[in-house]
């Protein structure tokens, strides 16, 4: 009986662990910050996560988006935002001050919102 209870508790704990635990965003801040800059490398829907690069005040930021299928499903495709366009991104930046990388949950371009992680906004 006790064993079964323990198993059920373990199962419950596993089932309710938030999806956020995947990758944990361990190296990134908890709080959401915003960046506005110019696209220097357009969206790439390849690899484990979609990526892009945005230049903000002469600093190039590596933007990590959701995995390609999820990013694409949010409407953000490789040709959605041209090079040189101005975008605003929101997400969790790297904890290291000199590591210009952000796990982005929302991209705004030309009034259009691409929420690649709507549950994390």
């Amino acid at each position: 009986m006790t064993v079964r209870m323990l198993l059920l508790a373990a199962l419950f704990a596993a089932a309710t662990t938030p999806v956020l635990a995947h990758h944990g965003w361990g190296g990134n801040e908890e709080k959401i910050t915003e960046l506005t800059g110019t696209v220097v490398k357009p969206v790439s829907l390849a690899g484990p996560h979609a990526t892009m690069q945005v230049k903000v005040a002469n600093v190039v930021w590596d933007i990590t988006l959701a995995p390609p299928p999820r990013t694409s499903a949010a409407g953000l495709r490789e040709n959605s935002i041209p090079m040189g366009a101005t975008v605003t991104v929101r997400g969790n930046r790297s904890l290291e001050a000199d590591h210009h990388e952000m796990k982005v949950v929302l991209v705004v371009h030309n009034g259009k919102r691409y929420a690649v992680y709507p549950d994390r906004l």
Partner: protein
Amino acid sequence: MVFHDFLQWLEGSPLGHAMRSSGVWTYAIVNLFHIVGIALLFGAIMLLDLRLLGAWRSVPLASLSRPAVTVAGAGVTLAVLTGIPMFATKATDYADNTFLFLKFALVGLALLNVLALHRSPAWRAQAAGQALSVIQERRLALAAGCSLVLWFSAITCGRLAGYW
């Protein structure tokens, strides 16, 4: 730098292009088979290594080693064949991913362990179904211990590479 040139060449190769331009699910599907390969490899070596370390002594070693080596060999082949295109997708992104290169080194060591084991008289004796001396059993047990530690470490580094 030669190393960075190699990463750029790999990323720019037809393989890298194909991985980046063949649909949003490509990487996930290749990744799936990479994991299946690792599962085949690790499951098979676990059975064989535990037997070599003294478990299930009633199971004739030759009856277990033949299928275990076949499945493990298929698994590692699948993992390597899917790993190369995954690496090629964004090879330059991995330039300072310590865990990924540590994993490559560990896989290399694990394969050297396999090579040394398969060339040993003790392994040939078990494959032929011969009775083994205590020394030969220790030789096989040593290789089994190295195998478990090296492959488990390789898998650990492989997983950590994704969190780097």
